[in-house]
């Protein structure tokens, strides 16, 4: 289904009118995707890792994205748009997956699935091990996270960003602004929780030292 909506968005955002496709050359499509993969696999994979926070899943979804690109080959009108088009596919793949997993979204990422409450010591360690930025990113809404990553880390231009996100240019900008505000708040909270955890650890040590 990504291919279909992609086609919609492709036409809307990248302004490429779709010609009637007379045929569909599989070999040409295969070579095209092979080349696309060689150029972009690392960045697509990196994007999906940061969106999903799961390297194995990200690898699966990278594969998925390129297969979809192969399938949707005839929806790409301008080769110069291929990268944004590919990001659009990857973005849809990521969101589809996140939505399927939504029910488990609130499972804490650090020290998950503990049956007992984590010790203050352990919590402080967890917090340091995974960077506060990565954790803050994980906390903000998925589409905001996507906007930030694509704009800041993957250098998509405004038009490309809108195309990849499948929204209008104005909406993409607004999403980016909201993402910056959300990240700011999340980062501040992450840092506060680190400070709190370290304070609790110090307090626990003092208690232990006293007894």
């Amino acid at each position: 289904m990504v291919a279909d909506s992609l086609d919609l968005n492709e036409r809307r955002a990248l302004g490429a009118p779709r010609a009637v496709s007379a045929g569909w050359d599989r070999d040409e499509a295969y070579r095209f995707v092979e080349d696309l993969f060689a150029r972009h696999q690392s960045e697509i994979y990196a994007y999906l890792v940061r969106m999903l926070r799961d390297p194995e899943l990200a690898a699966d979804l990278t594969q998925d994205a390129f297969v979809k690109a192969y399938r949707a080959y005839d929806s790409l009108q301008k080769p110069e748009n291929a990268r944004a088009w590919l990001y659009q596919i990857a973005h849809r793949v990521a969101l589809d997956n996140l939505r399927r997993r939504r029910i488990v979204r609130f499972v804490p990422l650090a020290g998950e699935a503990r049956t007992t409450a984590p010790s203050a010591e352990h919590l402080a360690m967890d917090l340091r091990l995974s960077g506060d930025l990565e954790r803050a990113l994980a906390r903000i809404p998925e589409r905001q996270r996507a906007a930030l990553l694509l704009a800041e880390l993957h250098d998509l231009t405004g038009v490309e960003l809108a195309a990849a996100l499948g929204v209008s240019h104005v909406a993409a900008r607004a999403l980016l602004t909201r993402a910056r505000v959300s990240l700011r708040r999340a980062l501040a909270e992450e840092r506060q929780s680190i400070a709190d955890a370290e304070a609790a650890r110090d307090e626990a040590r003092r208690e232990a030292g006293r007894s």
Partner: protein
Amino acid sequence: MSRMIGRRDDHDRARELAARQVDEPLEPGEARWLDGHLAACEACAAEAAAFEADRLLLGGLRNAPLVPPRDLWARTAAAIDAERGAGRPTGSPGRRSWIPLASLAPLAGLTVVAVLVGSTLLTGSPAAPSTAGVAGSPAPFPTAIAMRPGQVAVVTRGADGGLQVLTAGVDEVCPLVAEGCAAAAPSFATSPLTGLAAGGSMDAIISPSRDRIVVVQRNTSGSDGVYVVPVRPPTGGGAATIPTSSPEPGGTTPASSGTPPVGGSPTTTPAGSPASASPSAAATPDSTTSPEAPTDEPTPVDGTSPTPAVSVPPEATPETTPTPAPTVDVTPAPDGTIEIAKDVVVVGSIADYDASGGLFAFTARPADGSAGPDVYVWDTTETQAHRVTGDHRSLFAGWDGRDLLVSRVEHGQPRTVAVNARTGEPRAGAGEAAWLPGVSPDGSQAVWWEGDVEPDTDGTTWTPTKGRLLIGSWPPGSGEVQVLSRRAPAVWQVRWAPDGSAVAVWTADDQGERGALSLYAIDPDSGRINLSKPLLRDEPALAGFSLDGGRLVYASADQGDGHGVWVFAWEGDSSGRVRLPGNAEITVLR
């Protein structure tokens, strides 16, 4: 107090502008205001600086490269090869087959349609109030929501005037409040129902084993009947979309006669519905890595492999002649159509298969008005329906396991009794003080009317007057109940999700087919519904809708933007719907 709120608003505005300024220059007025605010607010100035710092921090992630697995291309290439090997269709939608109905047929390619023909429901009704529509309050980020792939199937009249089944995969919907959200429009595969007089239908029901469809159809002619008809494989071109221009009612030309089109072309693309969009759905709904079906083909509902639909005339005795008696009549036409009942009028709005799919029940009365309604059961291994009640005042309410639930008025009071579906023998007990209960698949819950009913003006059925439409523990008195409505609907239809996780209730104020549809999730722990937060509330809808796990498909009458078919889907905490353009003669296949 207001001063503090005003200041808080200022800080919010400053935060928003400072964040925006990272990506684009502000308007001169905005920039001046921000500078002024930051000069006066130390915390705000710090925050504005932090936006830039965050940007550097994000850029720092580049220094931690993430390397994909080395075998990733090998895996990807293999997946593409598999796709290439499978063959990527380049031609018309549904080239291979229209799959969902045929592929699941245990009868090896035999797909059968039974059509109950009665009086018109689809024409001449007053317009429903225009309260529906995806465009509620605009949401800033309209994005289609991916959903577990599923089939949408409708029965409608094609441009040539003949009835046809259209099927497509839909796996995207839009948030309820989104505006301008573009979910991919599916492309429909078309299967003509040949040999049938075209016309509106009030219900189309696919058997649980998915090997045959019953279309409950009514027309104005008064020549009523029940047919069994083989379904043909999709026609060559198929229809990219549902035809939106409805042929004039009354043009009851059999599709098989090959008469020229009387309406719009089925391949005409309605505005806003891209012709290029096509159904494609993951064959394994939950797997994100499994290759999706090639984009121009519908996907089997249950992931079974496609089997081409083959038209096989049902077993029938060709020389059987029609009899004037109600029902029970086998008349195969040269194209394989069998008329299994005639000279009846379908009564009420309830008709359904039992859980096994081996029996189909409905209520009908003689067309000449010589008797009141009785319950008819069609054993699908036979070629005719049987009347199982003989009191001429029985209405089919639904199935309770293997028993028929039959509602009757006894001593002025509505009662529902369980009846053996083959013999018509009532089960032990006095029955329940309930009218037309729709019982859940596990038999533990139901939706029913508790209260008074009165004979209809034509004396063939009864209509609720004073009482309550209830949902709760079945049978009545066995547990808790909740009140769905204190208004008396004239007719209603109840569908439970197969797993009992949701129930959809359609009600209408007259005997027509325009009504309101609500959808409730059942709390798995309490068994209750949240009445204040239905998944859908009173959506204008036509009779006949389908409900399965996480998906409700219904049709709506024209509300200014044409007739439509709606797919409402929910999963976890996300939900949404998509509207497919339809026409005036459309019935959702359930």
